[in-house]
């Protein structure tokens, strides 16, 4: 069980660092086309920023930003984006996950459409990895004990 810390230094440092960590995570996801990185790595960094928030601000405050229900929804949402892009290609008349045909709705040349398709897929991967990282840490830190049902 993580406790709420009242140490002003830890809270202040975390509050300054978290936006930069998240910005860097988004950079790693978006810049995967040109440098090492991509959905998996960026998603892990993004998940680590939420875990840092949970560690420094405690469970109750972290649940306002990212609850276990939101984490579960996001983790399935990322897979939905990925398979949804694949299905979109299928609807547009090419093979599953063959991004070339996305050029008809994106109004770009097929090579550029493939690049954008890769980006969309990486975003989906990043969302899933971020949510699963947070969800696993959340479950372990609470011991899986959720608040009792009010009935």
């Amino acid at each position, binding site marked *: 069980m993580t406790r709420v810390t009242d140490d002003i230094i830890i809270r202040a440092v975390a509050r300054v660092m978290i936006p930069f960590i998240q910005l860097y995570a988004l950079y790693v996801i978006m810049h995967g086309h040109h440098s090492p990185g991509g959905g998996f790595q960026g998603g892990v960094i993004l998940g680590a920023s939420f875990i840092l928030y949970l560690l420094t601000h405690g469970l109750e405050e972290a649940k306002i930003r990212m609850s276990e229900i939101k984490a579960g929804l996001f983790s399935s949402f990322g897979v939905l984006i990925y398979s949804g892009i694949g299905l979109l290609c299928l609807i547009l008349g090419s093979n599953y996950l063959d991004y070339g045909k996305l050029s008809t709705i994106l109004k770009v040349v097929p090579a550029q459409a493939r690049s954008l398709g890769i980006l969309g897929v990486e975003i989906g*991967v990043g969302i899933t990895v971020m949510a699963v990282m947070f969800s696993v840490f959340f479950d372990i830190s609470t011991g899986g004990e959720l608040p009792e049902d009010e009935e």
Partner: protein
Amino acid sequence: MRVLALLTVILTGILLFFGTQDMPNWADPNSPASIHVSPRYIEKTLEETATPNVVTSVLADYRSYDTLGETTVIFTAGVACMLILRIRRRRRE
């Protein structure tokens, strides 16, 4: 029974070691993997996918099914953690 299992393991191990003799050398430019698909990916990736990073284009375009499977594995791992660890405590009557 244990002796039989040990013999099976040893025999399989010896067979696998013999199998490695036929594998191409490390970083051999003439190995089948290096002459079949790799040059095509390296040469065509920029013109086909407009992505300078070959790793990304192979990961998310040419081998997209694999990455979809990986993402599903991670999602399944998260769901399994939820199912095992989360116990919703019921109020006692």
